[in-house]
């Protein structure tokens, strides 16, 4: 598709000439670089509670963000009105970050290369609403049918279709259509008269709605949420103190996201405020660990054809056999430090300034048999599922909260334990990885990453790994 046929050109009559005009207004005060980010976002959501479809919502928002970079300084303004005078006004406001005569010559816009990691003909948002309601109802039914002890089920289905257009003063012109859908199931279980326990499962990606009929059905997520709630009914107190920890494959990859991913975002390292600052080439994990951030995986939740600064996403090696190799870059940090773009400049919406962010972050598979990893542990904790995590990138301390875990006793999984937080220090924790399984699995597509008030969809993945020492925050 050429620009003339693209969404913003067709719907709002925007021309490359208009874009070049706005960019020169943005650079009028002497800025070094400017970009425009147009966004049209249509969202829908359905929620079921007590088997009643209590809510169905849809809506649209649109706007344009104008950014000007002058040295290391950023000026930003946005408008939710795409009239030329409002866009020019935003460009004038952003331009004020610089104060010198205009110096950047005009570069004609060139359309970027095209590829499509999510060739979705009809986005879920474009299907009949009723079809999506029916899928959501199937999840409610399946969770309730799983076990008579399930007494509450909530299902939330949400999708969106984002049209973006990026134009930059260095001549990049890119546009993209980004579909995304997710289903989440929450289940509560209890024995008669007992304490309720909860389970949660969900997933999705940048796929057609058929993904929920053929790949991961509502019943799949429902049974998983219900299973987790039932398992928790027998949970005992979690241990307290340093333990050998085995992480199961998939979502527990959130470890990588917190322990190393955030600390490798280039803005923190440009400023020297990350525990990983200045450590490229150093050993930060055991030689068994190779960690990748890959924004090019077809259909994945964290994938993008182009990042929110118009650069193609790519597969980036963060840690290779335990050695720190690279940071995740955005435009500003790569300009200032002379690094090559990595396609990690992302933002929540047109109202937000882009920052280096992760896409899909995972560890490559190793050689150990997962069963053998568990058998190797005389006493420890096996974590199958996690809730969220958080990191203090400056000290490097991170946590992640286990939502389904089991005691390992004499090489066997025994009793389930209650929710507990695991804590470690980024550049140190992964040095204790002593076995890596051959069973790399990516998560099912539920991740949301928050940074400085901006949320973006991400993916994680990990094979089964054994970590010889990590502090577990239980009570026993």
């Amino acid at each position, binding site marked *: 598709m050429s620009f003339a046929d693209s969404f913003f050109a067709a719907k709002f009559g925007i021309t490359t000439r208009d874009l070049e005009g706005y960019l020169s207004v943005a650079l009028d005060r002497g800025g070094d670089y400017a970009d425009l980010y147009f966004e049209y976002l249509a969202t829908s959501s359905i929620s079921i509670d007590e*088997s009643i479809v209590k809510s169905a919502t849809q809506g649209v*928002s649109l706007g344009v963000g104008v950014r000007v970079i002058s040295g290391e300084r950023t000026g930003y303004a946005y408008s939710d009105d795409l009239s030329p005078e409002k866009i020019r006004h935003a460009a004038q*406001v952003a331009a004020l970050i610089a104060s010198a005569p205009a110096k950047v010559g005009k570069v004609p816009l060139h359309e970027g290369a095209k590829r499509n990691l999510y060739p979705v003909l009809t986005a879920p948002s474009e299907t009949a609403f009723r079809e999506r309601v029916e899928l959501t109802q199937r999840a409610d039914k399946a969770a309730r049918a799983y076990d008579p002890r399930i007494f509450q089920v909530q299902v939330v289905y949400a999708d969106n279709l984002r049209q973006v257009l990026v134009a930059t003063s260095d001549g990049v012109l890119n546009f993209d259509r980004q579909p995304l859908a997710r289903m989440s199931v929450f289940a509560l279980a209890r024995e008669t008269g007992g304490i*309720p326990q909860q389970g949660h499962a969900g997933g999705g990606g940048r796929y057609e709605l058929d993904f929920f009929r053929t790949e991961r059905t509502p019943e799949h997520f429902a049974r998983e949420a219900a299973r987790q709630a039932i398992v928790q009914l027998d949970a005992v107190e979690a241990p307290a103190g340093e333990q050998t920890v085995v992480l199961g494959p998939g979502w527990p990859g959130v470890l990588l996201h917190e322990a190393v991913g955030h600390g490798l975002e280039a803005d923190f390292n440009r400023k020297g405020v990350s525990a990983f600052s200045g450590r490229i080439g150093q050993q930060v994990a055991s030689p068994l660990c190779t960690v990748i951030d890959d924004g090019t995986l077809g259909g994945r939740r964290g994938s993008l054809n182009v990042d929110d600064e118009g650069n193609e996403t790519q597969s980036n090696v963060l840690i290779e056999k335990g050695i720190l190799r690279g940071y995740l870059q955005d435009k500003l940090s790569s300009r200032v430090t002379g690094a090559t773009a990595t396609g990690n400049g992302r933002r929540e919406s047109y109202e937000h300034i882009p920052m280096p962010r992760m896409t899909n972050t995972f560890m490559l598979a190793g050689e150990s048999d997962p069963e053998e990893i568990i058998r190797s542990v005389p006493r420890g904790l096996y974590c199958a599922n996690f809730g969220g995590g958080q990191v203090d990138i400056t000290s490097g301390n991170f946590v992640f909260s286990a939502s389904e875990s089991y005691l390992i006793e004499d090489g066997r999984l025994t009793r389930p334990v209650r929710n507990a937080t695991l*804590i470690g220090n980024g550049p140190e924790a992964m040095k204790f990885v002593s076995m890596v399984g051959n069973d790399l699995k990516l998560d099912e597509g539920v991740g949301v990453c928050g940074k400085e008030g901006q949320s973006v969809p991400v993916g994680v993945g990990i094979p089964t790994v054994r970590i010889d020492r990590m502090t577990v*925050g239980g009570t026993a």
Partner: protein
Amino acid sequence: MSATFDQLPELAAETIRQALAAGATDAECTISEGDEFSVNVRMGEVDTLKEAGSRGAGLRVLIGKRMGASYTSDLTPDGIGQMVRSAIDLAGLTTEDPHAGLPDADALGSLKGDLQLYYAETASIPTEEKIDAARRAEAAALALDKRITNSEGGSFDSNVGGRVFANSRGFLGAYRSSYCSITAVPIATLDGAMERDYWFSLARRRSELEDAESVGRKAAERSLRRLGAIKVETQKVPVVFEPRMARSLLGNIFEAVDGRSIYRDASFLAGKLGEKIAVDNFTLIDDGTIPGLFGTSPFDDEGVPTRRTPVIENGVLKNYLLNSYTARKLGMKTTGNASRGITGNAGIGHGNFYLEAGTRSPEEIIRGVKNGFYVTELIGSGVNTVTGDYSRGAVGIWIRDGELAFPVSEVTIAGTLQEMLTGIAEIGNDLEFRGSVSAPTIKIGEMTVAGR
């Protein structure tokens, strides 16, 4: 699009008329607008400067007992028309909910008088003055000690917004609000290890902000006192929460008294009304009416006036926080705690949610601890308000023989919310309203600290 704020109530009323004409039996419309400004100064130079404004409208309709909702950022007649059609269409696809509905007409209303939420002057603080305040906050932090080696900057934010709400039962209300803040985030270094902390001041207008230098110095002191932190051995000890952390504990209790988790039986406090769940001197209030504070508003997001609701009084659970829907589910009355973005069913929010102060100073509380942990930061989401299980990453200072002895990090604190509430040994006299959730220092008799 260029309607002034004063014209938005009429737009909301018109939206309701259109929704009713299109077949809705009831409708609610919210319009919100906001202008934001933020500047961050890092190592003495302006790092980012952002300035913009936006608006949005949302509609929720009921056709009988079925709901549909929509929103738009396009406030032109076309945009509003599309939003109305969209909500009406969706109402045909949801299921009848016997409890769906608007608040009863006699529950609607708005507090009278000036709640001191809005100062026009906040919108016109000169940019140079804002940059200067951010710069001075950072400079004061950097100047305090040579171990403050780096910084994520000083910043000044200001925000002026307005909210309009109308419904088909005759409610039409609007209010504006303003705030501004100064923040500093300095980084301290010792033997190559870095620590970061922050401090801020938040006010409805510039003249009520703490001075920039004082914000910077407090932030620097907080970063400095974390230097050289060690991991302690796993043990059970008394844990003292500084006010900022006691506030986060109140946030957990808020989730557990949210009417939605009560009717679903998804809270450890469900079915406990009238029971003693905390120590005698524990009194937790939600009050949306206190002039000038950050949890104050004249009406909630369903057009019900805000009020003062004792949640826990002298240790006894007195009230849940409800909107009209959860009230109908539970056979109770709304407490004026409806909260939502611009569309969808209302959730539950709090007003000024605070723990009443005790009598002893924080210094006296610390002096009374022989061996314990003073918590200054908590990270992670390890609180389960369904079961009450509590386990979070913690940073703080070890207390030895009544003195703050040495910094501690990379540990967790764990227990259950039930035991924490009944195990509160002291409540400090240092209650300050610094946001919409406020608490004094709290000492909990015993929790598990997991470390080495």
